[in-house]
């Protein structure tokens, strides 16, 4: 296209290239800013590695699996926060996956047309609510509910089952890993729904209609046509949401309890990487600051691998089905 443009303007003004300076300036800055996106990722990686280096030098790689967080004695390890991060993300997925699947099925298969737009908008607004609002709501509304009703009920029933029971014992704190996981599930729900809805819509209508034509029920169409066709995209949507859940900060910080002790009970207070960063960063210096940066680096590696895999899956789907 450049060829066409240059020769065309060439003919017009006879010899001069009126667009040339503009082309170089404009195209050049577009290129530089596009490269900047790559530089950003590289910059994030390098800066985190540099900042985390003192902690890794002091504690070695055992930093990752050491259960310690003691600013007074300057002993730090990532295990408690890493555990909290993974567990809250896991709880969020356990709750969020079936619910988001249900909403996506409703929106694509069951919903009457005149309700599609308002309900989709409502789901997208749920995604737009700032995470700090989820945090406040969790602290002032959900946590008291959990403490008074839900957690005693769980402790009374699931807590008595042998083996599984250890995950649901102890006093009902209200705040803790379980509550944080619930808040997270609500937060990542809209992301999963909107991607899944897009993915479901890539299924050609002929496939759906032929199945309906054979007498299949809605559930059979979803189970045997829609889901198999869009499997890669659906898993991509889950992984993307998991990436979000792992790195979510404000919603978790309010309700996770900020304890650095690993307890077998899911109802006990804990902390995630993001929540300890938000809590301790402003007052930290020296080895504690570097240890926090090391936590940040671990979070970076964790989330970017999950997000990267998710994006690769979604890209594969896009390539296959245009």
């Amino acid at each position, binding site marked *: 296209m450049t060829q066409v443009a240059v020769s065309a*303007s060439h003919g017009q003004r006879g010899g001069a290239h009126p667009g040339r300076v503009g082309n170089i300036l404009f195209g050049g800055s577009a290129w530089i*800013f*596009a490269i900047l996106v790559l530089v950003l990722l590289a910059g994030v990686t390098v800066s985190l590695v540099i900042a985390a280096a003192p902690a890794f030098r002091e504690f070695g790689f055992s930093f990752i699996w050491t259960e310690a967080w003691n600013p007074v004695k300057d002993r730090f390890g990532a295990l408690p926060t890493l555990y909290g991060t993974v567990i809250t993300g896991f709880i969020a997925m356990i709750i969020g996956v079936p619910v988001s699947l249900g909403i996506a099925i409703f929106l694509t298969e069951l919903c009457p047309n005149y309700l599609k737009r308002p309900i989709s908008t*409502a789901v997208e607004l749920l995604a737009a*609510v*700032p995470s700090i*609002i989820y945090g406040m709501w969790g602290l002032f509304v959900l946590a008291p509910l959990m403490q008074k009703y839900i957690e005693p009920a769980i402790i009374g029933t699931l807590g008595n089952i042998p083996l599984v029971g250890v995950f649901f014992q102890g006093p009902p704190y209200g705040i803790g890993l379980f509550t944080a996981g619930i808040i997270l599930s609500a937060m990542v729900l809209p992301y999963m729904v909107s991607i899944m809805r897009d993915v479901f819509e890539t299924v050609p209508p002929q496939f759906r209609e032929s199945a309906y034509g054979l007498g299949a029920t809605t559930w059979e169409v979803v189970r045997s046509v829609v889901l198999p066709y869009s499997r890669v995209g659906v898993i991509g949507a889950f992984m993307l949401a998991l990436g979000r859940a792992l*790195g979510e900060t404000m919603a978790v910080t309010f309700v996770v309890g900020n304890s650095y002790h690993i307890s077998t009970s899911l109802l006990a207070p804990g902390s995630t990487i993001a929540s300890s960063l938000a809590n301790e960063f402003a007052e930290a210096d020296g080895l504690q600051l570097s240890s926090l940066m090391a936590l*940040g680096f671990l979070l970076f590696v964790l989330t970017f691998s999950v997000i990267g895999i998710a994006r690769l899956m979604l890209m594969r789907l896009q390539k296959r089905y245009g």
Partner: protein
Amino acid sequence: MVTLAKTPRVASTNAVVRRRVRANRIISGLSIAATGAGLFLLAWILGYLLFKGFTTLSLQLFTMDTPPPGSNGGLANAIIGSLLITGVGILLATPIGILAGTFLIEYGRGTKLAEVIRFVNDMLVSAPSIIIGLFVYQIAVAPVHHFSAWAGAIALAIIALPIIVRTTQDMLQLVPDALREAAFALGAPKWRVIVVVSYRAAFQGMLTGVLLAVARISGETAPLLFTALSNPSWTTSMSSPMATLPVVIYKFAGAPYQDWQNLAWAGALLITFSVLILNVVARSFAPRTRN
């Protein structure tokens, strides 16, 4: 499709059909319940915000600064801080994001480089904002040894950037090549074709992207904790720490003082409804490509 799904009911004498219909009803019921739960959650959160925040909503909120515990005050310094930092952030991110998105479609379409940049950009869209905060702390706070509104604006710009790149790229992709070719045939240089033809055709969609980016960054809290921090008094100096609504909400909501908590709820109400209105407005500009 609802009617289609119900057709097997006609032959419900058959036990197999009855079982299939029952399975279908259970799943349909669960999907409807899930949707209801999602809508209920939205209504619950917004309703509770209105209920808690509305009583503290007054003119004083906009005229007085954040108070020490136990005395009267408002959120004026936090509101101006949020406007300033978000504004500067979006001003930084918009030209960079639009040009980067332009490169992906108008210059690099189909090249390996554009594909890699697109992939990295998509990853940055979903990157946790707290990581961006740590990065900006390293480059803009640690070297000068003090927190500043500039650092906050840079952090928000980095969060907004990939969103703008993404929407610009998506919208430019929708511009038909015939339009570009027509402009080229008239002898326009490439940069003019892009500015006059492509941008004009994609304008609404790109505006949507920028507005959604504003909505996203104006509620961001975590990266500001490491960059702009907070400031109990009014300031418009970008090189000093600055209060923002989300950070003040975070600080006040977790405090044991009733008047601080009330202010936090009022601030939460302000920020949430601004963000939601911005979202609805942005979406009304969006070209309806789907369906």
